[in-house]
């Protein structure tokens, strides 16, 4: 390869890495007279874990509905790896893996059938889908439950299946809306560890919405969302320093005037 071609390839690679995995620009959304989001902007860098921290009612779920195009973005714009969700929904959504706050597995059919259905919704043929599903289930240590009806799984196992399902079409960005709500401490820890492993080993960019402060680590990026507005964003150390706090908990209290939860 010539030096010029090599340089061109490197600069293309650099440019690719500079694109944010997920970028939200000045997004507002209202339900009738109720304003749920006001001029929200945030970015999720590639291969990083970004925590979206906010109390219940902060607007996290609305933001997820806009990112995943359940609702249309009327004010502002959202891009997934440079693809605008409004104008190129197909391109944007195929790069995105989603775990909603509400359970979205079909309880009446088996774990494997749920995964195959999801694969079909992304145009993946059954043989390939089966291979990926088996690999995904092995990764979350639930391969032996593949034939079980979903309703026979525990809450934590269902969440792990949802994460495996969200990764089945090999997205570059994974968004999870309060994935640990209602789970016991052990399940929460397993899921969080697995998602951090995906960031570290697979280079997946993660947006993790939570109201639990103890799920935010010092090395994370964080966005504090409160009453539909972004109050602070950046690396945890930057946010903590910006308000002159000792740690993220104090920073959150200083920013919002309320305390989030450490654990459930």
């Amino acid at each position, binding site marked *: 390869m010539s030096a010029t071609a090599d340089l061109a390839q490197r600069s293309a690679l650099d440019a690719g890495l500079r694109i944010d995995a997920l970028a939200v620009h000045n997004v507002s959304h209202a*339900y009738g007279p109720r304003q749920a989001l006001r001029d929200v902007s945030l970015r999720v860098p590639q291969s990083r874990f970004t925590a979206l921290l906010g109390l219940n009612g902060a607007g996290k779920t609305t933001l997820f509905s806009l990112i995943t195009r359940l609702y249309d973005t009327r004010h502002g714009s959202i891009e997934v790896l440079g693809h605008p969700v409004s104008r190129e*929904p197909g391109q944007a959504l195929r790069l*995105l893996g*989603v775990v*909603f*706050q509400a359970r979205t597995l079909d309880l009446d059919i088996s774990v494997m*059938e749920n995964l195959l259905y999801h694969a*079909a919704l992304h*145009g993946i043929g059954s043989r390939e889908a089966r291979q990926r599903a088996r690999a995904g289930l092995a990764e979350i240590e639930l391969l032996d439950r593949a034939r079980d009806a979903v309703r026979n799984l525990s809450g934590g196992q269902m969440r792990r299946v949802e994460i495996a399902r969200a990764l089945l079409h090999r997205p570059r960005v994974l968004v999870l809306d309060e994935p640990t709500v209602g789970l016991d401490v052990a399940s929460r820890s397993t899921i969080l560890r697995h998602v951090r492993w995906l960031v570290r080993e697979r280079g997946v960019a993660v947006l993790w919405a939570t109201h639990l402060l103890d799920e935010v680590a010092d090395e994370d990026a964080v966005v504090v969302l409160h009453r539909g507005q972004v109050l602070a964003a950046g690396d945890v150390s930057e946010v903590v320093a910006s308000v002159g706090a000792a740690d993220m908990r104090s920073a959150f209290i200083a920013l919002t005037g309320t305390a989030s939860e450490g654990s459930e």
Partner: protein
Amino acid sequence: MSVPQAIGRDGFGPLQYLICLRGIAWREALRFVHQRERFISALVRPLVWLFIFAAGFRQILGVSIIPPYQTYVLYEVYVTPGLIAMIQLFNGMQSSLSMVYDREMGNMRMLLVSPFPRWYLLTSKLLASTVVSILQVYAYLFIAWLWGIEPPLWGYVSVLPALALSGMMLGSLGMLLSSAIRQLENFAGVMNFVIFPMFFASSALYPLWLVQQSSPVVYTICWLNPFTYAVELIRFALYIEIDRLSLAVVVVMTTVFTTGAIIAYDPARGLIARRGGGGG
């Protein structure tokens, strides 16, 4: 060797579109198989009408020679197309009920966040639900044949396109209704206000000329009811004939309902986004 495919703007080729359609149809069939009581009740409902209601009415209600029948027919024979349409009406409504349930439980979200165009996803779901309804109809026709209701042999084939069309019309109506319903509990009311009026104010149970004799107002309602045309389309097709007016009405209403449902589920224009979201 891989076969070259035309790739669309969304990055998917025809094969991926087919895989998606097959997946949606497969899940619909799986749900139906898993809900055995749904299949049984779908079959028992029209059979009760056939065995009990029609047997009782046979002596009271005379059906004169009306197209497509060449002779006087038993009431059971007359009512069969209406009961077939009833199967499809219930299936369409049940399918939309499952969409409301899916939306409440969150499964519907997974369908809607698929990268395929939303119109394609909804149309695929509609097609899948129609296929399920057609399977129910043929199971019913088999039992009706055992009961002595024997349309021409080719009628079983010629009725298939009519069933596909009427199934699409009633399924798309259900889909449109499901978009407007916020909670599962509200669905019972809609069932009462849609299924029963549609079924009774139609030509399913009695010929329209008979209705006209007793009440011109009810006759007008029956005449305006799209379900009447689904019944007549099936009735004529079962006797290897085409009722052009019914065909036209069913095609137009299918287009209207499907377009309405696609708009209603469109995140840019639909009803879904205008209602409040929950959670954090």
